[in-house]
């Protein structure tokens, strides 16, 4: 009988306050492992044949093949010759592995409930390739090969999200596709482990509780202030950079000048010193404005991250559901032109479809059925949300909700529910593959079957996202990790 609420509370009650990790390396970003797929996977050559090969959403090549070597897709096309010694697998439909952009799989469960995170807290520090491997296996068997995981999923500030590969591995670095895919914040989510009071004001126990509207809108302000602080920090950093350059230039000019007139300058100085002594005054060295070297802004790891967010270098994912919060977020972020953000949840977001479409803000929808025992902010939750947004021209992503590591396995079925509620099947497929990859800045690595990309390939016995279709083979991380036998 417990629904999302139960799991939600569970996740939060398991919260362990983790020390905030000093993340100076994270703030530089772009520390993606050079070539994780190739670095430590066996150099198996795999030749995949399919009656219908979906190379990217909307593009199908009939009777085609995909060649995989050293963890990468080497070639996709018709009439490819099979290399000698290659392992051959075949099926009816071939497509890219699914991506769960809102997952809780592959990360230490207690980190999901992290409540003390800051923008610089990194999910990648909680990535766990050793435990709950049965859940990752189940997800792979269902065709989900990649997931975005998030520390502090229920916290106002969660921290930096990470994209992980679900293929079995013993090395954390092999699991991480992108260590910093986004910054995560939430607005107005019901909080677990809160004291609740009855109508008489008597203590009624602990449980999940909705935030009051003022607290929620205050959260929006705080979020916007944080981004503004990041922007200011960026401005300061840029100003410093320019001032430093100017100062260095002036100093260099002065030095050259002094060099040139060294004798005259020496004489002038000696004279001035002598005059001062004669008059019984203290000799004061002439100070140059140029001596004042600019001071850098004080280093702040959170602002380093927020600066990237404000500058559009790192997407911001905000989990918000109600009209008031979404409206405040949209109007407050209007002036932040470079900010790239994704709205997660968005139960009531269709009121703002036009703005979301115009400003190209994708909505990350969780098409999980919810009974009446749902959290307050999901009052208007409906499986047709994705379909309604898509119809209005909003980009839709689909995720399993980020609280239950077992739910990632069921993402293809959830996509089915969204389709059953009106979402176009191809839009759902895009959401689970290239759409998600692009929104999270890994579109050059995963999400489609193209030469050079990571080899995450599904071999199916039917059309993808049809509930009765079975996954026959999964190639992930360059290996065949699922076969009909296992």
């Amino acid at each position, binding site marked *: *009988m417990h629904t999302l609420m139960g799991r939600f509370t569970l996740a939060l009650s398991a919260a362990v306050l983790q020390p905030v990790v000093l993340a100076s390396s994270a703030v530089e970003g772009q520390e993606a492992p050079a070539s994780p797929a190739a670095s430590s996977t066996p150099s198996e050559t795999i030749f995949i044949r399919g009656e219908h090969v979906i190379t990217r959403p909307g593009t199908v090549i009939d009777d085609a093949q995909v060649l995989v070597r050293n963890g990468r897709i080497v070639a996709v096309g018709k009439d490819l010759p099979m290399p000698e010694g290659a392992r051959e697998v075949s099926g009816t439909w071939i497509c890219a592995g699914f991506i769960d952009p809102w997952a809780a799989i592959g990360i230490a469960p207690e980190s999901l409930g992290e409540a003390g995170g800051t923008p610089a807290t990194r999910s990648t520090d909680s990535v766990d390739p050793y435990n709950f491997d049965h859940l990752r296996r189940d997800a792979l068997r269902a065709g989900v090969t990649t997931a975005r995981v998030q520390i502090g999923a229920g916290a106002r500030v969660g921290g930096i999200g990470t994209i992980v590969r679900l293929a079995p591995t013993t090395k954390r670095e092999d699991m991480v596709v992108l260590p910093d895919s986004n910054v995560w914040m939430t607005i107005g989510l019901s909080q677990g482990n809160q004291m609740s009071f009855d109508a008489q004001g008597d203590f009624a126990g602990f449980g999940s509780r909705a935030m009051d509207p003022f607290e929620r809108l205050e959260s929006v302000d705080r979020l916007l202030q944080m981004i503004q602080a990041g922007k200011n920090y960026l401005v300061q950093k840029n100003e410093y950079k320019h001032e430093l350059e100017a100062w260095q230039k002036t100093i260099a000019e002065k030095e050259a000048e002094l060099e040139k007139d060294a004798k005259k300058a020496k004489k002038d100085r000696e004279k001035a010193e002598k005059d001062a002594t004669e008059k019984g005054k203290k000799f004061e060295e002439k100070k140059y404005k140029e001596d004042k070297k600019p001071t850098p802004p004080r280093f702040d790891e959170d602002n380093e991250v927020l600066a990237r967010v404000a500058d559009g270098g790192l997407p911001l994912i905000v989990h918000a559901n109600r009209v008031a919060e979404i409206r405040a977020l949209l109007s407050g972020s209007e002036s932040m032109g470079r900010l790239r953000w994704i709205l997660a949840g968005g139960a009531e977001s269709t009121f703002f479809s036009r703005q979301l479409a115009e400003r190209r803000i994708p909505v990350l929808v969780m098409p999980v059925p919810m*009974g009446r*025992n749902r959290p307050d902010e999901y009052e208007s939750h409906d499986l047709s949300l994705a379909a309604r947004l898509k119809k209005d021209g909003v980009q839709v992503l689909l995720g399993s909700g980020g609280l*239950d590591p077992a739910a990632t396995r069921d993402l293809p079925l*959830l996509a089915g*529910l969204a389709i059953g509620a009106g979402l176009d099947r191809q839009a759902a497929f895009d959401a689970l593959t290239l759409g998600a990859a692009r929104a999270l800045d890994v579109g050059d690595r995963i999400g489609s079957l193209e030469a050079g990309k990571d080899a995450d390939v599904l071999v199916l016995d039917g059309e993808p996202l049809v509930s009765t279709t079975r996954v026959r083979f999964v190639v992930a991380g360059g290996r065949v990790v699922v076969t009909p036998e296992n």
Partner: protein
Amino acid sequence: MVIVAMALCAPLLAPFSPSNTPAVAAPVLGVPTSVAAPLDAGSVAIRADAIWLGDGRVVEKGTLLLSDGRIADVGTNVSVPSGTQVIELKGTITAGLIALHGYSGAPNEMVDGTRPSMPESKLRFAFDPSHYDFEDARKSGITTIVLTPPAEGVAPGITAVVKTAGGTMLSDAAHLSLVFTADGLVSNRKPTSIAGAMAMMEEMFAQPRGSVALAAEGKLPCLFETTTKPDIQRAIDFAGRHKLTGAIHGAALAGELAESIHDAKLSVIVPVIEIGKERRALVSVAELAKKDVRFGFGLDSPWNHPSELRLGAAMCVREGLDSAKAWSALTSDAARIAGVDARVGRIDRGLDADVVLWSGNPLDLGSRIVAVYVDGVRVVGGDR
């Protein structure tokens, strides 16, 4: 919309024109206005790519004729009386789904913590046919729900079987609920232990009266509420001692005891299967089918969403449950477990016209519900 109202359309079917609608088959109690008007259970013929009869048979390119709230005919060679409205469906027709365990429309029946044993309390008295829960259920293709008392105390009451539209009650006493799970115990009221609960239940059946007597005589099936495998074992033993029939609900791993359940001639109501349900539980459902145990699915609506009924079945199919068995579990087998198979659960002549029109394979969650008929009245879809 896939529905295309075709030629042959009679001049508008007057709601109460004598030629079309002599009577509404089912009793109507407090019909919600949104469903009531016009309560036209006239005749309609639906031609579809496939009609799943509910017993495993499928009629390809068939016609279903609904008349006066009943299924008048089904097959490939149905003679459609002139003047009957004909609908062409690109998709599949099935019987309406049946949720075997729920609280929909009985919003105040969740907890009655005062007494451990109320074997005469009847859920039929709590049924509110106008409750908004039923609209959600209809939209997910559910046309029948078994209203159950919460699994608390020892004998919390008698289930009722209701339709999700029109206020029809199919059975006002379907099962006597008996609780074998420790989840039903509380610390401040007798019994406080499983052994204590068993003692009270034995005492009840030692001198059976009322509903308990009916159950002991085999005239009223029981609903055995369980959570764990030991609970099931105790329920089977108890049923054997007192020659009880009925269905076991609540234990996700019931399939791991499929043989014992089969030997005890009991059925199983699989508890609602939520997203992320452990794989072992899904495999266990497939095991029930393999061991020929009759089973259906519970929902515990409204605390779970009606779409979870079909979702759960699809999840089991993915883990090896036979598709046809899965569909029977949602319809015909569920009707037998609820004791209402003479009225609903299959598509056959004379049965109630409770059918769902799907845009494709009903076991593909991506198939949409095009229309739902209850007692021949279209309650979802089209331009009602």
